[in-house]
C-alpha cells in the first residue's frame, strides 16, 4: 500500500564522471533542450540547490539523485571554521521559516578535504558558496578554491543577514559590494557569482554595482530579515533575535527582485526564493533568470529540486518548447 520515493526509485547516472558538460549527449534522446549557460559554464538544466539548505549534497545525496541537478551549491564556507549562532537557530513561519544559523562552517581545509572530495564523484556542476568577515577573508577562500579543479563557479555571499561580520555591510552598500567583487575577481580563476541581499531599497543598483565590479553573474534573493516572538516564553523565537525569512512566503518578492535585476544588468541572473516546484521555477525563468535555486523546499520534500528539474522538462514537452532559452525573460 505504501508508495515510496527512495533512492533506488531514481536511476543513478552511470557516467560517474564529473564531466557535467556532457549534457548534450543525454538530451539527444529528449525532445527538449534544458541546458543553460552561466558565464561560460554549461549546466545540464537550470535547477540548482540554494546554499545552506543542502549541505554539500552528502546527506540529500543518500536519498536523491544529484546528477539530475544542474548544479549543487554548497553551504557557505570561510577561510577558518565558524561556530555559528546559539540555538534555537530556526523557527517556522506561515509558508516559510526563519533561520539564524550564523554561517557555521568547518573552514576551507576540511571543506576541500571532505566536501569537495565527495563532490568529485557527483555528475553535476559544483558551485561553492563563500562567506567572509573581511575582503581578505573572501579573497583567501576564493584563492584556495580556485586551485581546485572540481570547483566550476564561486558564489560570494555578501548578503547573509545573520552575523554582523557576515557581510551585511558589503551586501547593503553598493560601493562595498563593488569593492569585494573586484577584489575576489582579481584572485579567482573560475567565474564568480555575487549573491545579493534583498534587504536593500534598490536591488537594481546593487546588481549594477557588482556588475561594475566584474561579477560574472548575480544570484538573488538571500533571506529577508525577520523577527518572531514566542508569546508564551515572552522572548525571541531565535537566540539571535532576528533571522532570515525563506520559503514560499517570500516568493513574490523574489520574483519581483529577479525581474528588476535582470532588467538592470547584462550578466546572467540566478533566481531563488520560495521555489517548491517547476511552476514556481518557471516564474523566475520567465522573469529573466537564467537559472534557479531550490532551498527551503527541501525541508518539506527532499526531492524538491530534482522534481523541479524534471517538471521543467515536462512543462517544455507539454507546451512544445524546444529550448529553455525561449522561456528565459519571455515576460518583459
Amino acid at each position: 500500500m505504501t508508495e515510496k520515493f527512495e533512492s533506488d526509485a531514481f536511476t543513478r547516472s552511470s557516467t560517474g564522471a564529473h564531466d557535467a558538460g556532457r549534457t548534450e549527449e543525454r538530451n539527444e534522446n529528449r525532445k527538449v533542450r534544458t541546458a543553460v549557460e552561466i558565464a561560460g559554464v554549461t549546466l545540464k538544466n537550470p535547477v540548482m540547490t540554494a546554499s545552506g539548505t543542502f549541505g554539500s549534497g552528502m546527506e540529500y545525496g543518500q536519498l536523491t539523485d544529484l546528477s539530475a541537478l544542474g548544479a549543487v551549491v554548497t553551504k557557505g564556507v570561510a577561510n577558518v571554521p565558524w561556530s555559528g549562532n546559539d540555538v534555537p537557530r530556526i523557527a517556522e513561519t506561515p509558508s516559510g521559516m526563519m533561520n539564524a544559523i550564523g554561517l557555521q562552517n568547518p573552514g576551507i581545509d576540511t571543506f576541500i578535504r571532505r566536501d569537495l572530495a565527495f563532490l568529485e564523484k557527483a555528475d553535476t556542476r559544483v558551485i561553492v558558496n563563500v562567506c567572509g568577515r573581511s575582503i581578505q577573508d573572501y579573497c583567501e577562500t576564493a584563492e584556495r578554491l580556485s586551485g581546485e579543479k572540481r570547483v566550476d563557479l564561486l558564489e560570494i555571499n555578501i548578503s547573509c543577514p545573520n552575523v554582523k561580520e557576515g557581510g551585511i555591510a558589503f551586501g547593503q552598500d553598493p560601493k562595498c559590494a563593488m569593492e569585494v567583487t573586484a577584489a575576489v575577481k582579481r584572485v579567482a580563476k573560475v567565474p564568480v557569482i555575487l549573491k545579493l541581499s534583498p534587504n536593500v531599497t534598490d536591488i537594481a543598483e546593487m546588481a549594477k554595482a557588482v556588475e561594475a565590479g566584474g561579477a560574472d553573474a548575480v544570484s538573488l534573493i538571500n533571506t529577508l530579515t525577520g523577527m518572531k516572538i514566542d508569546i508564551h516564553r515572552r522572548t525571541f523565537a531565535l537566540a539571535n533575535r532576528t533571522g532570515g525569512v525563506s520559503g514560499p512566503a517570500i516568493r513574490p518578492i523574489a520574483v519581483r527582485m529577479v525581474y528588476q535585476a535582470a532588467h538592470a544588468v547584462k550578466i546572467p541572473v540566478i533566481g531563488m526564493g520560495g521555489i517548491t516546484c517547476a511552476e514556481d521555477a518557471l516564474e523566475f525563468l520567465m522573469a529573466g533568470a537564467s537559472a534557479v535555486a531550490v532551498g527551503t523546499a527541501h525541508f518539506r520534500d527532499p526531492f524538491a529540486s530534482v522534481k523541479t528539474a524534471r517538471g521543467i522538462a515536462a512543462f517544455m514537452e507539454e507546451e512544445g518548447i524546444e529550448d529553455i532559452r525561449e522561456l528565459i525573460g519571455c515576460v518583459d
Partner: protein
Amino acid sequence: MEAEKVFARALVLGQESVGTQIFSLLLEEKTVAALAKPGQFVSVYCHDRSRLLPRPISICEADPAAGTVRLVYRIAGEGTREFAALKTGDMVEILGPLGNGFPLEEAEGKRAFLIGGGIGIPPLVELAKRLPGKKQIIAGYRDELFLTQELSRRGELFIATEDGSTGTKGNVLDCIRENGLTADIIFACGPTPMLRALKAYAETEKIPCYLSLEQRMACGIGACLACVCHTTEKDEHSQVKNKRICAEGPVFEAGEIVL
C-alpha cells in the same frame, strides 16, 4: 547501496488517544519498520503546506515482521494537532528512520536504568524491548500516566509523579533514591532539566550515561545545521564543537555534550 532511510507515504492503520492530548499513531511503513533502532526518530510532514517543517517524533515501537511503526506524541501546536486528526486509511509522509539511536551493545552484561520524563517516555518502549540484560525503567510523569502497561511488560517499572498521585512524589531521581536503585549504565530521554540532573548523577556515580536530546529541526538529516548542541571536544564534522542532533544524535554520551 542499501537505503538507510526513506521518504515514504505511510498508511495510517489506526490512532487512539492514550492520555489527555496524547495520541498513539500506528503506521504501516515496511522499510522504516525494518530499519528502525530504539532511540531513532522520524520526520512527520504536515498536509497543510503552510507548515513546511517536518515534526520530529521518536519511534515508540517498530515491528519489522508486521511492517509497522508506532508513534506516541503530545499535541504541542498546530502540526501535532493536525496529526491527531489522522484516521485509519489516511496517508502521511514520513522520512526515517533518522538519527543514531541508543547504543544497545553498551548494555551487554550490565544493569541498566531506562529513564524517561513526560513525552520523552515513548522511545523507552522499543528500547526496553531490545536492550539486553537486566533493566529497571524509571518513568516520570506530571500526574497522568501513559504507556505504563507496555513498559512494565518489559522491565521492572518505577514511577514518579510530580503530584505524588502514583509512585514517588517528585522526579525520576527522587524515585531512584526512594527505591534505593543502582545501575551500571543509564539511557534517558526527557526534558533538559532532567537530562542535566542525570548527567550530574552519572558523573557522581561514575557510570556511563546516554541522553537523547531535542532541538528545532528543518532537514532532519544533517544538511542545514539548525539542530546543533555544544560538545566538549572538537568533532570531525563541524570542527567547532557543534554536533548535529539529527545526525550524530539524538543520543549522546553525557560526557560528550554541554547541557
